């Protein structure tokens, strides 16, 4: 435990820097490390570089799959699904009459215990980019990325200012791929990534067919 106002040396900072970025150091140590970063250029450089590493590798684009990966996976799963469906139909031939008998006996309530409650969704409640327009976000002077408060990869904290996500986007800031990941993943799955993947898939199919023709 480090009390607020205490100082820490470089070795302590290096040992705790990962926990600091995870938000897992106590407030006293965090304050001491913040103070150290103001005065130690080396540790500040380590902090910024480590943040960059987390941000770069956390980006979906860092994951590249071999050409045709999706097509081959789909085919193999289709074969697996066929096998399971045959097995399933054999089972269900027995299962259905048994279930019917149980229902008649009044002993079992089917289905309701196996499904999650599903919130009602308005069709009008689908923003174009997945991030709530009124979400308070933070931008800083020397970065083009906006974050939610407390994000571990905010640079240059002394220049922080708060605005809404809509304003940040209008001013040309891009969402942080770490703290806003859930919105990006959601938006990507809902549309843009699927669209991109569909195009990639089409291109791969075309290349595959061309190679086959040759």
């Amino acid at each position: 435990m480090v009390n607020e106002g205490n100082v820490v040396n470089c070795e302590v900072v290096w040992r705790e820097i990962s926990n600091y970025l995870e938000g897992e150091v106590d407030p006293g140590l965090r304050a001491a490390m913040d103070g150290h970063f103001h005065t130690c250029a080396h540790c500040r450089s380590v902090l910024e570089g480590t943040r960059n590493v987390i941000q770069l590798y956390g980006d979906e684009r860092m994951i590249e799959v071999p050409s045709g990966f999706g097509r081959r996976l789909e085919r193999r799963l289709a074969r697996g699904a066929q096998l399971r469906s045959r097995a399933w139909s054999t089972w269900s031939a027995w299962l259905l009459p048994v279930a019917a008998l149980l229902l008649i006996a009044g002993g079992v309530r089917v289905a309701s215990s196996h499904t999650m409650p599903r919130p009602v969704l308005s069709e009008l409640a689908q923003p174009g980019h997945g991030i709530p327009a009124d979400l308070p976000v933070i931008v800083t002077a020397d970065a083009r990325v906006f974050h939610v408060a407390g994000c571990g990869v905010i640079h240059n904290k002394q220049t922080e200012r708060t605005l809404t996500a809509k304003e940040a986007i209008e001013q040309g800031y891009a969402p942080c791929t770490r703290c806003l990941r859930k919105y990006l993943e959601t938006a990507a799955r809902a549309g843009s990534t699927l669209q991109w993947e569909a195009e990639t898939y089409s291109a791969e199919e075309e290349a595959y067919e061309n190679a086959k023709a040759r």
Partner: protein
Amino acid sequence: MAQPNAVLNNPETAVLTREQDLIARVQRGEHELFYELVRPYERRVYAAALAILRNESDAEDVAQEAMLKALANLRQFRAEARFSTWLIQITVNEALMRRRRERTAMTEAIDAGRDDEGEYTPRDFADWREIPSEALERKEVRQKLAQALASLDRKYREVFVLRDMEQLNIQETAEALGISVASVKTRLLRARLMLRDLLAGGWEHGWFSRLPFEKGSKPW
């Protein structure tokens, strides 16, 4: 400022509802929908397998095996867990079993079980400020990042990939790899610092500096 309605304005809820619906339908026997269910995660599954096996062909095969195992065991999936995390954990298990079976990690096995106890001293580089996400559009940059990651010892690479690329939390990472939370934290620290040293060094030698940033907007 008015807070957005957490349910109505959250498209994640729509995706989760769709995912739960697909899971329920596959569990009821519509197995042909399984690819639709796992498609958003296929890249992450492959990356997890590759981090452990370091061989593209083996990683693809294990990714497929893991998906088939997930299909076979989907009825055991419980909704309180994230489906993606469950899928990644199956993949990690499959990959670890493959590696044990084929003994491909003989050369790395010697140091696999223990963490380096000494302090790690980050190298002193010029300030490396924020990399804009546009940098990742360049294949050259992605290759450099992949090479740096591949150069790490596997104990560091595995933890880093599961935590920082697959976005599992510390506890989930520990459970997936069968190691302690303390080991995850130690390895994660070292992996991050080593990658920072490798990449900041690369920048000093010029390969980042060739990136096509807007004139006058060099971000570091």
